[in-house]
């Protein structure tokens, strides 16, 4: 599936949800079901700096495809991380770099993404892109 198709799918899922309570419930479920990151990666080297909830992120490249895993100590943040992984994982570096993340706005999570919101969400997305850029640079060598 294209990254844009996955985003559409998510937008549709959220459209079926009611007010914030259902949305948060959904994110909490996503967070609970996100496979935990390998404990080996749950350390400061993989920590994304953000004032409040901590997010650990790992990426691996296999056969030209990027796979992300993540964890967070805050469950709603973890739910958002699960969404991000669903959107980005299994794609090529080039696709990830080119992707426009319009869905965040449309599912009402924009407030979680203001550049200075202290939850590390923006940093997480940036970090995912940096991984993709690094892999792309490696491939082109």
């Amino acid at each position, binding site marked *: 599936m294209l990254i844009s198709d996955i985003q559409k799918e998510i937008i549709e899922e959220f459209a079926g949800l009611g007010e914030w309570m259902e949305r948060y419930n959904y994110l909490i479920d996503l967070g609970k079901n996100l496979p935990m990151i390998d404990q080996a990666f749950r350390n400061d080297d993989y920590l994304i700096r953000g004032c*409040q909830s901590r997010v650990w992120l790992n990426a691996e490249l296999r056969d030209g495809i990027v796979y992300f895993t993540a964890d967070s100590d805050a469950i709603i*943040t973890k739910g958002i991380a699960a969404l991000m992984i669903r959107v980005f994982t299994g794609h090529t570096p080039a696709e990830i770099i080119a992707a426009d993340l319009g869905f965040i706005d449309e599912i009402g999570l924009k407030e979680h993404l203001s550049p200075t919101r202290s939850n590390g969400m923006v940093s997480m997305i940036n970090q995912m892109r940096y991984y993709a850029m690094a892999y792309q640079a490696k491939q082109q060598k």
Partner: protein
Amino acid sequence: MTDFPILKIRSDFPILSQMVYGKPVAYLDNGATTQKPIRMIEAIDKIHREQNASIHRSVNFLSDKMTSLYEEARTTVQNFIGAPKTSQIIFTSGATGSINLVAFSFGESILKAGDEIILSTMEHHSNIVPWQMACERKGASLKIIPVTDIGELDIEAYKNLFSDRTRIVAVTHVSNVLGTINPVKEIVQIAHSHGVPILLDGAQAVQHEPVNVADLDCDFYAFSGHKIYGPTGIGVLYGKEEWLERLPPYQGGGDMIDQVTFEKTTYNVLPFKFEAGTTNFIGAIGMAESMNYLSSIGLENIQRYEQQLRDYAIQKLGAIPQLRMYGTSEHKAAVFSFILNNVHPYDTGLIIDKYGVAVRTGTHCAMPLMQRFGIHGTVRASFCFYNTMEEVDRLCDALNAVLDLMG
């Protein structure tokens, strides 16, 4: 329960009738910044519309009037905190600006390699980092007063931190995280008994109780306008005259000089020596108006009412078994830091926000204190005199909803 005119007071703060997510906002983030009374809003508006002009240095009708208002604001602040002279009131950009001023000017003129500065574990970053920077420049080091399990300063340990290299103590009056009201008079006396001056960080104190710097006998006292119902970008540094005379200026610029040549510059008298450039004179006047408003209600009355709020909140929050409170001193402001079992503070904050309850979550610019308690953050509800018992209830209801949702 009280004859405090809470309805009248709430009507003095326009923002309190704002709705968020269809509910009237329960603004419990007063430790971060406070809301503005109509008197101060209108004072600022009037200056902008009718009175604004440059202070001190122009010769015209508007400028004369503006200068008088500014210098009257200084007198208001002087009286508000019981300073002996107006020249001891320095307008700064905020508590952070005030502390940086002292840390720099004291650091440059007094600190030598090997010297020591005493801080406490419960300091706000604004009362840590400026001292760290001064220590780094001068080769001095920090000694830290520990905090007990209930969130009080360990006074016996404090007494043992002094050495003949101790140059200054910097301690907060009221903890922004725990709410602990430190025994500052005693803390000042102990410092002085070792011949060491002391700065008190009053950022969380001046708005909640009557403060008299002459009585406290502290050498410096710092606080922010925006936390005392005034505008942003303005703060105060009070200092003993002898210290202010002795310290070199902090920033260079207009108004703080006497004579400037490229060879040599001489400095103006107090307080102007420490007020470089065009100060936030409109902000200073706004802050003074907020102080006048507080005085019209009476700081003692405010303190008493806030104690009632505190006691009620202790009882109600204490009834939530999954809630772990940090800071349980008897001497405590209406500031509550806590964690709900197994729920991250950030999740708690996000959810209760949807109930219209505004709090702050995170480390509250006090990471060393978080480390002391082995946590990464708390939820903080900080009350003030326009909050109500009903808002305590709303907080607790919202917290119970969080527990349901996350359960």
